[in-house]
């Protein structure tokens, strides 16, 4: 943030958009944990979006809406959030960074850019969440999380307003962050969700990040659908899993290890699913 020359406080959304549009090198700021530490950045104008009432958490109609500037701590301690996905969203919040950082990091900040180490994108994917975005013209659109991440996060000038999380408590949900120490940047983050009816998997979501950009592994999802809980063919699923991820380099830990880890964590999630649906 070495180049910042202006820090502005819009009083409402439309003013925020105007301030953004006025200057070529504008950026929105909420928690700021990444922006403040960033030294290779040309941003000159910062627009504070934390005073626009965008941090509400609302329970409604089978979904929980979370405002973009809600902090991870606000989410973690919200009774509404603990209802989502049998607590999977809360668990993901718990494993993000550490307490003083969770007090600053916001939902919007966690999903606006595609940093692979952040914690929430995989649960947005397995919950089929929707990201509500306002563009510079003030137009609102609802983007499915899968599209949001596939498209590379927010576009220039886009402002995330909220995320709609389906509660989806009838599904099985599981989330793991594997890291060296608890507060470390993740080595591998994985979320898994499955719908089971009459002893069979009728729908599934599997998403990973850090080993690759946050993404759903649809080949594995498809292979899961139709399997009987009692007789899941784990070995062949693992083969599909392995071929469906191209693991990126991480200077801390080898691809070979993370390939195996992915298999182990997934296998354990399947086992957990089997135990819980017995």
């Amino acid at each position, binding site marked *: 943030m070495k180049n910042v020359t202006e820090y502005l406080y819009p009083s409402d959304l439309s003013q925020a958009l105007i301030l953004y549009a006025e200057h070529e090198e504008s950026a929105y700021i909420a928690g700021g944990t990444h922006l403040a530490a960033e030294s290779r950045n040309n941003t000159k104008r910062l627009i504070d979006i934390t005073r626009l009432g965008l941090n509400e958490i609302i329970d409604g109609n089978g979904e929980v809406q979370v405002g973009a500037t809600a902090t991870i701590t606000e989410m973690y301690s919200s009774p509404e959030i603990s209802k989502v996905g049998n607590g999977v969203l809360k668990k993901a919040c718990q494993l993000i960074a*550490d307490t003083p950082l969770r007090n600053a990091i916001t939902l919007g900040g966690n999903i606006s850019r595609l940093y692979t180490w952040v914690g929430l994108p995989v649960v947005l994917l397995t919950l089929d969440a929707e990201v509500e975005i306002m563009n510079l013209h003030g137009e609102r659109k609802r983007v499915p999380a899968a599209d949001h991440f596939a498209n590379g996060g927010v576009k220039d000038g886009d402002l995330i307003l909220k995320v709609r999380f389906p509660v989806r408590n009838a599904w099985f949900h599981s989330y793991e962050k594997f890291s060296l*120490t608890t507060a470390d940047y993740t080595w591998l983050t994985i979320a898994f969700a499955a719908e089971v009816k009459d002893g069979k998997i009728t729908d599934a979501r599997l998403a990973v990040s850090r080993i690759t950009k946050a993404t759903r592994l649809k080949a594995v999802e498809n292979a899961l659908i139709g399997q009987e809980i009692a007789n899941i063919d784990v070995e062949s699923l693992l083969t599909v899993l392995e071929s469906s991820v191209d693991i990126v380099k991480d200077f801390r*830990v080898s691809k070979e*290890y993370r390939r195996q880890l992915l298999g182990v964590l997934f296998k354990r999630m399947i086992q957990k699913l089997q135990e819980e649906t017995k």
Partner: protein
Amino acid sequence: MTEKIYKGRVVTKSVPKKDALSLAMGKPMYTDDMDFKDLLHVKMLRSPHAHAIIEDIDTSEAEKLLGVVDILTYKNSSQVLHTSAGQGFPEPSPYDTRLFNKKVKFVGERVAAVAAESVKIAEKALNLIKVKYTILEPIFDHDKAIGNEVIIHDEDESKYIIPVFYDPKKNHASHIDAETGDIEQGFAEADHIVEKTVRNHYGQHCPLEPHISVAYIDDYDRLVVRTATQVPFHCRRILAQILEIPLSQIRVIKPRIGGGFGTKQEIITEPIVASFTWKLKRPVKFEFTRKEEFISARTRHPMTTQFKAGVKKDGTITAMDMKVISNTGAYGSHALTVLSNTGSKTLPLYHCDNIRFIGDTVYTNLPVAGAYRGYGGTQASLAMEIVMDDLAKAIGMDPAKFRLMNHIKAGETSPIFKALGEGTEGVEQTVDSVGLTECINQGADAINWWNREEIKKKNSTDTVKRGFGLVCVMQGSSIPDIDMAAGYCKMNEDGTFNLLVGATDIGTGSDTILAQIFAEGLGIDASDVLVTSSDTDTTPFDTGAYASSTTYLTGQACINLAMKVKKQLIDYTATVLSVPKDELEIKNKTVIHKKSGKQMTFAEIGTKSYYSENQTQIGAVASELSKKSPPPFIAHYAEIDVDIETGRVTVLKYVAAVDCGTPINPKLVIGQVEGALVNGLCYALSEQYIFNDKGKMMNPSFGNYKIMTTIDLPTIETIIVPTYEPSGPWGAKSVAEVNISGPMPVLSNAIFDAIGIRLTEPPYTPDRVLKAIQEQKK
């Protein structure tokens, strides 16, 4: 077992640490907490290459930048050859360092320092300095460094100033060998021989406060350096040497320090600010970034330790043979002494007549190693305690029983004490306080050692295996025949005392410990003692905070002080009350003449001695030269789970049983024990330097160099096993270092116990453990 245990009036009590409340209130007590007018800020340009010659360096553009005041490079700075090691004189480390070199030898070496009106300007200026390098082939593998065609110190001038082996043309920074008994005979007598080669890794001290120094000129035109140092007196001497100015022109002040652990024994930021300030006559500050702390402060010496030992069926150890190659990085800070301590702080632990130690320290183009809590003992304990477990296994004896049988007992000696000193010959000594048997026994009970097979069975699953481990470790207390510490004290008119010590409280609590020791001697309270440490102008000499010496050595100096003052109090009272000296006794801060009922309280003595009767200043100076180095002993136990599918090692419970002689302040003892062992756990499990193939550290940040936080902790139980060390103050020995050396071997032993696989190359990260498991299967 030692019979005598000291129960004190002030010592053995957890009196509050003197500075605790002020620190908890956030008072401005550290180096950076004082504001200076017209302060200049330093930023350092560092070498991006592991091995290169600076063909040309052009600072002209940077100098033109508004706000840049001065730039130092090898062209315009002191070229005095010195060692940054911060040791006593003559130093046992090679003089191989200059402030700036034409040849850079590791990624992170100083190239140019900018002093500017603000940090921002100084940072900007760094980008404007143009350096032309000729890149040389580097050498990173310390096992291949000796005699390699790549020569790191080929400039010809580097040397030791003491007569020891040194062959820089072969990258060979030090060599030691020592042998007692007959090693061949010893192995011939053995029924079983175990040999292991272990490799420990790079690790950093990570004091929360980075290195920081501020220099300014005082009203007498002297150079004052306020600095985060463990060694103010050595710092003053080395600054005089580098700047080539009289020592009397320099004052070094140590304020509160935000942790040291060895890295602040190094004189690395001080010469930079001192050089600028002496030249510019302006206050100058230099604070390391966290990145600089990792790449250019100091690290633990990585070593390859080969250890071979023989044992008879009855458990008698017949021979121990240790060969060490130590990597000092690009410069030889503590190259020789860490090496000698790998042997001297481990080999005396177990009975054995036939011992050989061969050690070599080598230069590589990697970050510079230095003093780090444990000081060689940490490295060698890994090899030693793995082999001890394997020896016990070889003869079918329980590892605890094997250690109980073999560990050194009170009244015994080891030939190693004489054979291995600080790079030169050592000092013979018997060990007179050994609580290790009790430590092993009490620790075993605490971890449920004798029921471990049952617990393992009950708690292991197909994928997660339970295991238990045990190790014993020793250290020393001060450097015998070399370390000297001193104190002054003076009585105030209210009967309190000022105690001025050169001893360097870097967060250890030594101000409080020394106040307790002194107070115990005079029958006063710790709160009656006002402690000042350390300032080269106002406090007496002390070697500083290293070698586990302060409690043991400065503590003894404080007892000497108390005894001197006691005599003065009696003499003064005898004169004033006109009674015979030998009929006086001291009780409740009062000198009492029982026969006559006459008495003087300390406050009365204080007031009268100042103002009204036989006026004199009651006070003293006293010192102590260390005569021996009594080892503290510990037994560490760990209960762990190993996940054989992910390789994750989870420590569930950790027990440290500790013999540090008399625990002067039990709560501060526990703090030293647990702080050291958690540091050791992090080093064993998650801390590591990741280098790329160019010798650049890839993870120089707390974000990627992982130390545990509260949520990663196992259950920790500390057991203090008091003994009485006759040569120590009120029976005390050291405690600061020894506990850092337990975790690395104890986890290797516990992992072996859990899954039957021997890990010899920490850290035991999940990926490394899993790899070891899979290699075993092949």
